[in-house]
């Protein structure tokens, strides 16, 4: 069966499709506004006419390429290409500003590969065990998990806590627009049916990052003489030394485990995993004050985790037929259409396809590494395009992404609205990143809290050990992060005086 899977993948046409998928995925991932999910949505119908192995292999390639491609624009433009690379901006862009764009890209690419491989390894070896664990997560556990992840906001806010919290709450509040979870009653839609779907994460990201980047450039028009950011970017190998690589291994392993863990639990996704692993990496590091100034560790944490999430998300997808996020939901559709029903019998009924998926993922990861390392010279040359030409084109692509997300022109209006909001937030020194966590996790929290309220009469919380552990962990995270924040604020104050 393993051999069958191998044979299915290593046919010239399938290999070609995987290569095409990876390249298209990287392009979709790299362009702000176009995401890995969108790439899969657009190419899913193309795979209807392929064989099962070929179709799924192509979709996997798009997925892996798409998640990896996001780091390019995050590092070079400070605009995350996909939700999964939000945290890559934190240190990636400062590195690029210091003239280390090549090193940042190299780090991102190599550790994306490492993350993908660790994810696949765990997928192949531990899938059945982890599925049993994932099944333990029901309403209570998800409710606590959402709270726990939200508590990371406190760590992400930096020194101005009320403003960080405001950002997160505002995100959660925006996410209440649209049909309410569970009962599908419209909320805050003002009778506009276009608002029934609520706001899309990708549209929010465009507003928060892409538009605000254009505006911050617009502010500097009369001050800047040189429109190309960097003239000389030296590229040698992957841009960093073997010693540096080895030094990052513990960080990478922790981040990969966080990524896989979040991937296994349906409904959270790569956007959260990169931020959590960044926060964990920062708060456990010996030099936490350097995070955000442009060090490898930050890029490693974010990129390893988001790619490891892929392997994690595929575990419940294949073994239970439960998709972890929008992208894997599309993959599930892709599998069903080829009459491969994920679930307990997938190894018995479609073993060859499963192994084909594993090999396709492996091959996609290798292709991703090769293409991105090879393409780095080319990516960096994007920096040589004058920004006053580059940014308008990026904006148009963002507009297309907003339209393409649900084929609704209306989303471009919300895109501009979010851009205006982001600009004002930045002016008011309110951080924008916590907003994303609030936006993603708010609905998860609400849905499960309300389910818990349904269950509470018959099923008490103390019967749920995972729930209790997570709640205690949440409290601890809040206390320790708040203390660290206050310390940082004092230090800043001292430096300011």
């Amino acid at each position, binding site marked *: 069966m393993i051999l069958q899977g191998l044979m299915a993948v290593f046919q010239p046409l399938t290999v070609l499709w995987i290569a095409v998928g990876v390249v298209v995925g990287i392009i979709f991932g790299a362009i702000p506004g176009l995401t890995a999910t969108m790439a899969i949505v657009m190419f899913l119908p193309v795979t*209807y006419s392929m064989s099962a192995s070929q179709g799924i292999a192509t979709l996997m390639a798009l997925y892996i390429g798409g998640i990896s491609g996001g780091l390019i624009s995050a590092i070079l433009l400070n605009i995350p290409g996909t939700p999964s690379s939000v945290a890559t901006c934190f240190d990636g862009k400062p590195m690029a500003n210091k003239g280390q764009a090549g090193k940042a890209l190299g780090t991102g690419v190599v550790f994306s590969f490492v993350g993908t491989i660790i994810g696949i390894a765990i997928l192949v070896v531990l899938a059945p065990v982890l599925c049993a664990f994932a099944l*333990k997560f029901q309403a209570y556990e998800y409710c606590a998990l959402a709270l726990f992840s939200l508590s990371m906001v406190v760590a992400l806010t930096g020194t101005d806590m009320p403003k960080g919290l405001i950002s997160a709450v505002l995100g959660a509040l925006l996410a209440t627009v649209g049909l309410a979870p569970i009962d599908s009653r419209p909320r805050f839609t003002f009778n506009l049916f*276009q608002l029934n779907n609520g706001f899309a994460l990708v549209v929010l990201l465009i507003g928060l990052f892409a538009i605000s980047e254009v505006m911050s450039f617009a502010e500097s028009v009369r001050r800047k003489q040189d429109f190309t950011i960097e003239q000389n970017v030296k590229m040698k190998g992957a841009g960093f030394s073997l010693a540096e690589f080895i030094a990052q291994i513990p960080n990478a392993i922790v981040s990969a485990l966080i990524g896989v863990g979040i991937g296994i639990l349906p409904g959270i996704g790569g956007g959260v995993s990169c931020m959590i692993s960044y926060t964990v990496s920062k708060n456990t590091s010996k030099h936490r004050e350097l995070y955000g100034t442009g060090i490898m560790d930050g890029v490693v944490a974010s990129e390893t985790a988001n790619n490891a999430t892929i392997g994690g998300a595929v575990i419940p997808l294949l073994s*239970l037929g439960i998709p972890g996020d929008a992208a894997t939901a599309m993959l599930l559709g892709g599998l069903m259409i080829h009459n491969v*029903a994920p679930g307990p019998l997938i190894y018995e009924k479609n073993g060859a396809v499963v192994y084909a998926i594993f090999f396709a993922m492996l091959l996609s990861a290798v292709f991703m590494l090769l293409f991105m390392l090879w393409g780095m010279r080319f990516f960096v040359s994007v920096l040589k395009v004058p920004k006053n030409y580059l940014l308008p084109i990026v904006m148009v692509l963002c507009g297309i992404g907003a339209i393409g997300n649900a084929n609704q022109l209306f989303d471009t209006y919300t895109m501009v609205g979010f851009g205006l909001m982001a600009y004002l937030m930045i002016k008011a020194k309110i951080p924008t990143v916590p907003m994303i966590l609030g936006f993603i996790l708010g609905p998860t929290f609400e849905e499960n809290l309300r389910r818990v309220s349904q269950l509470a009469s018959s099923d008490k919380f103390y019967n749920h050990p995972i729930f209790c552990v997570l709640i205690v962990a949440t409290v601890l995270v809040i206390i320790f992060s708040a203390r660290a924040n206050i310390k940082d604020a004092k230090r800043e104050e001292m430096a300011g005086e």
Partner: protein
Amino acid sequence: MKKLFFALVLVTILATSAFAAWPEKTINIYITHAAGGDTDYMARQLAANLEKVLGVSVVCTNVTGANGATCMTQYKDGNKDGYTFIATNTAALNGNEATGMVDFGYNAFEPVAVYGIQSGENIVVHASSPYKDLRELIDASIANPGQIKLGISTGGGVYIMACVLANLGHAQFNIIDNGDAANRLTALLGDAIDATSLPYSTAADYIEKGQLRSLCTVLSKAPTLIPNQPSASAVVPELKMDTEYALLAPKGTPAEIVKAMNDAVLKVCGTPEWKEMVNKFSFQDPFYFDVEGTLNNLKEQRDLFQSFVPILEIN
């Protein structure tokens, strides 16, 4: 008299030539559900085959959200030139109206054709549970009111099913919301609920593996390729939830074009390749109606769903 006759002939020629030319450009089909789902797959299969019959390209676009309500709201008054169609399923079309998600039904469109039927949902329990059929499950819930947890997705077809079970079948379940099919499956496997309804395609492997047990199908008649299943309607007569795939046109699309499109759909559905595809995909034989049959079929289903409105307790 002669003049009038000529005028009449001229008009007829003009009129027929205008329609005879149809189709002369790309046809757009807007799919109400996301890529990867059964509604999308069936619509795209239909479109690919229509291209061969009609000789023009047929482009599919997914406009998703709110169980298809977004797309239907947007295109019910869309372009009436005969190049705009909406592909959806009848559970969304009639269900959204019954649950009050939208205030219009199939009458807001020019129905073109019903062109397929789903493999349906099954009521399933854990294999270790003592209930062997729907009757036993309902009786057990009556014996222990509020103790048997039934997982549903509020507002959708499964919700309607639960309401019918509770009001017309007199069951007394503890209703728990679990969200979509994948989440209901998780909850059932994780012992968070005792019973739920799952699409046959989702549940099949678990049933085969002996982890889950199907009590009945909620289709009015078991799929042709998996015939040996009891129907829920044997226990609760009103419980018939047939999800069919339907092609609609915006209101006001000329009847000639609707007829021509229906002819093309019927031609597609009559081919052996189509039969092979639906056999494989939904365990059903080809299922389709002409324009009039489509209207009757939709009316029948809508009447059934509307009869549930009093028991749905929406608002």
